[in-house]
């Protein structure tokens, strides 16, 4: 009962903030709404037993990535977005097509998991830092090391792209 209440509260916050991300005209409002989505998703991860992932979500996403976004928005002095006329196709078919996509996703999920169980808080305790770290450094060691190369390349790419002279 308490689980359902918490899920309802944070799912509602997540959906409302996500809609706000799309509807706000100013990018900084979108960015702050996105922080709301990420925070409520972190709570849902905690309810699903992902302690480590919830903390990483807060630190990496809501912290680092969104600070980067807000920094760039401030740096570029991004204003309210200019609306132009959009094509009649988008106006007529846009929202129905999206609802169709949602319907397809929901249908597939219902088809694949007809007897989906209920999830109680505390069923699954294998998501702590110890378990995640153990899996990461034994079974998933190679992907983990490749990730470090990816990060290195991303850093180099960002530095090269954002250099002062670009000829």
């Amino acid at each position, binding site marked *: 009962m308490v*689980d*359902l209440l918490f899920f309802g509260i944070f799912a509602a916050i*997540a*959906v409302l903030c*996500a*809609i706000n*991300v*799309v509807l706000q005209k100013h*990018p900084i409002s*979108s*960015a702050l709404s*996105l922080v709301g*989505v990420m925070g409520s*998703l972190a709570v*849902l991860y905690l*309810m*699903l*037993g*992902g302690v480590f992932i919830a903390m990483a*979500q807060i630190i*990496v*996403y809501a912290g*680092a*990535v969104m600070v980067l*976004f807000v920094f*760039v928005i401030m*740096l*570029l002095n*991004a204003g309210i*977005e*200019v*609306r*132009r006329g959009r094509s009649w196709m*988008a106006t007529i078919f*846009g*929202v129905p097509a999206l609802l169709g996509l949602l319907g397809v996703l929901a249908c597939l*999920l219902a088809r694949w*998991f007809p007897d*989906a*169980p*209920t*999830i*109680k*808080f505390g069923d*699954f305790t*294998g*998501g702590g830092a110890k378990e*995640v770290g153990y899996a*990461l450094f034994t079974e*998933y060691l190679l*992907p983990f090391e490749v*990730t470090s190369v*990816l*990060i290195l390349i*991303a850093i180099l*790419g*960002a530095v090269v*792209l*954002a250099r002062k002279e*670009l000829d």
Partner: protein
Amino acid sequence: MPPIPDGVPMSFYLGLSAILFVIGVAGFVFRRNIITVFMCIELMLNAVNLSFVTFANYHKQVSGHIFTFFVMVVAAAEAAVGLAIILTVFKNRTTLNIDEVDSLKN
């Protein structure tokens, strides 16, 4: 009226994930500001992460969490490179509107 279940049905989590993903797609398609489009991509990644964590709970395995971790890492790298690209685009064209960045069109 059916009895209120003890705990949250797994389909609720998956449904929330689907809803967030579709909202992200909507923003990606309808918004014209390049930074907001980028934020909608992050929203879609987050929606998929929620599915991963839900399935990790369902299968009682930690692999889903590892995958979520990798998605986060890739998203951070993507944000760094993408925002550098946005900076370069703005420097060269002084616009953030994706309708005006169309030099590869035609």
